[in-house]
């Protein structure tokens, strides 16, 4: 089973349809599957529900899919950086479901791990708990949250081999590993595509079983959202 595809468009061929649910890895613009998002934009698929911690910024990341109005609903924890998002949301054109970031991460992990629901303290006594089951354990209140799955997960990794084994680099790991487990199909873009046996098997974060298709994102231009520096002494 050859998992390697030549580019983002061919790797997504046959996987996209209107009204589908897509998970997209990344935190801010860090570790986002930028090429795959562009190919989704170019496909013209619409009415998407996107599960992603953030919504990109104008002109970058998921911001591309917002500009073209391909997104019906976002499930996110923070969308502060995006003007297009604000406009569409205030115009009632875009639905948003806010999840606490840790609850979002755990819901995705649960989805991939066959866990339909779990209990957490996060959000107890807040709007987030409204309409959800609550239950006491050891005298403390917890709220029930459900697992999340997607029709498609698109992720970014630093290195991948032809079997689909992935490793991530620094804080670009973030939501990518869980999302890789929670997509019915998972497509990965990797900055370095290597032969099997090249990555130490103790270092692999996402085993190849979770990755159905993989592309080499050569010479990727990675954006910095908040460039902060200190002065040299």
């Amino acid at each position: 089973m050859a998992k390697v595809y030549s580019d983002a468009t061919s790797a997504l061929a046959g996987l996209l349809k209107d009204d589908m649910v897509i998970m997209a890895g990344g935190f801010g613009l860090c570790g986002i599957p930028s090429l795959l998002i562009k190919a989704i934009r170019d496909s013209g698929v619409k009415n998407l529900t996107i599960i992603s911690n953030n919504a990109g910024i104008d002109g970058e990341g998921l911001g591309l899919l917002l500009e073209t109005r391909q997104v019906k609903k976002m499930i996110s924890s923070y969308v502060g950086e995006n003007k297009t998002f604000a406009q569409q949301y205030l115009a009632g054109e875009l639905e948003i479901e806010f999840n606490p970031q840790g609850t979002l991460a755990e819901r995705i992990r649960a989805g991939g791990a066959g866990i339909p629901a779990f209990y957490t303290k996060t959000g107890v006594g807040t709007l987030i708990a409204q309409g959800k089951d609550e239950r006491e354990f050891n005298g403390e209140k917890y709220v029930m949250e459900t697992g999340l799955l997607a029709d498609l997960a698109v992720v970014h990794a630093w290195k991948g081999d032809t079997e689909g084994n992935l490793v991530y680099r620094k804080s670009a790991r973030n939501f990518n590993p869980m999302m890789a487990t929670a997509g019915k199909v998972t497509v990965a873009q990797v900055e370095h595509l290597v032969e099997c046996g090249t990555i130490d098997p103790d270092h692999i974060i996402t085993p190849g079983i979770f990755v159905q298709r993989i592309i080499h994102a050569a010479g990727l231009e990675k954006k910095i959202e908040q460039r902060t520096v200190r002065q040299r002494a």
Partner: protein
Amino acid sequence: MAWTREEMAARAAKELRDGYYVNLGIGIPTLVSNYIPDGMTVQLQSENGMLGMGPFPFEGDEDPDLINAGKQTITELPTTSYFSSADSFAMIRGGHIDLSILGAMQVAENGDLANWMIPGKMVKGMGGAMDLVAGVKKVVVLMEHVAKEEKKLLKRCTLPLTGAGVVNMVITDLGVFTVGKDGMTAIEIAPHVTREEISAKTEASLRFADNLVQH
């Protein structure tokens, strides 16, 4: 004379203990890292998946793969480890972080905290704040005592909550306040600030500690 932002951060740094694992929010809390006492080892957690956060990089050393939860470029340390968002919040939710210092819009005398939404205004989302206040062992709020004449230490929060009964301490420009079963207690006040001024600017029922310290 109210404390400056730097003085507030320095005061918050006194809550650090050797060996602590700490999460600092955006804004004034970020400044706390400048006041970690010499010889004390404190590891900073960034909820996007990093433990052992270093300072901002020198110009030219910025790495797009290395950012903190505020999306700012940062650096790593010899102690650094990286992990996924699920593992990061497992760490937070599981009570492994000793101290969270974060900003707030409102704090109530029962420890309720509001810092994520104002009804009618564009909501950006809670990010990791709800997880942090629910999971971290000690939660310290670092904020101005009043905002545009509006009181922020209240009997009950009027804004939607980030967490219910989660705040252990509030440090403002006017003083330091513990939050316990019996409400708020001022334990320190800034130089030349009077009890009367604090009382006038506080809606929450407030007790002044017997051993109140004025700097």
